[in-house]
């Protein structure tokens, strides 16, 4: 996805949490994803808009 690196508001990244666990997220800039370690999910950012839906998130596999 070439669009994933579109600018994203840093203040937005500060406030967003995982919708399932309400725990913190880490921003993987290269992948354009917001990672919830606790939920084991990576939420995609498409066209600069975070998609905070568990059903749209990539499931993280052990050790990745």
């Amino acid at each position: 996805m070439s669009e994933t690196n579109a600018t994203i508001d840093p203040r937005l990244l500060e406030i967003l949490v995982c919708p399932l666990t309400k725990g913190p997220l880490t921003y993987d800039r290269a992948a354009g994803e917001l990672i919830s370690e606790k939920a084991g999910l990576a939420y995609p950012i498409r066209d600069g808009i975070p998609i905070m839906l568990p059903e749209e998130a990539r499931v993280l596999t052990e050790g990745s």
Partner: protein
Amino acid sequence: MNNQSQAAAPQPPTGGAAPDTDFGFRRVTQAEKKPLVRAVFDSVAPRYDLMNDIMSLGVHRVWKRIFVTRLRPAPNRALLDLASGTGDIAQAWRRLDGGPVLATDINAAMLAVGRDRATGRGMVAGFTYVVADAEMLPLPSGCMDVVSMAFGLRNCTDKAAVLREAHRVLKPGGRFFCLEFSRLQIAVLEKFYERWSFNVLPLAGRLVAGDSESYRYLAESIRMFPDQETLAGMMQDAGLAQVRFENLSGGIAAIHSGWRL
């Protein structure tokens, strides 16, 4: 309820689970409702405002204007606009000197229409956009001064969860506002309104958007939505205080509000 309307509509696969929520007049399982609603909005997204104009004879613009003034926009107040869609509320809030607005919608297509429209009007600063499910917000507790939802709650599967989440993300002293179709309080208009909703609307939907089923859903969902008193009770159950409502156009729509104390 109304079995005639069910006859023509394709039945969703039930997958063995018992239907436990409404999709218009149909009963479906909670798991089924979300994709069905999404399909409706994917279908109507490009012409959503036109649809609202048809459904309300243009009056939704007046209702939204009243709604936004009730939110009391001010530069030092942060707004979470749920089901922000094409962005009418978020943009009006900013135009009236409201503070930063976080616009969310479960439908990325609708949100993109809203963002492009705002950007096209030179409105960029102060807006952020997130695709989110109002039933499980990706926000910490107590971060918003105002939470608004205009014509969105009706389409949510678990309305109680939405109200609990709105309460949770509000700061103490923050206020939740809901604008939604409600129950007409003027008996003499009821028959006209009924005809309008179930005969004229689906026909108009077919002619304008080529999609009468989606419009039928929208008309049915309005009729299935809790009336003024019931919604007020649901808001109280979610923890909101001093819940009140204001009827618009004789109760065709209503503005509900409640505080997080």
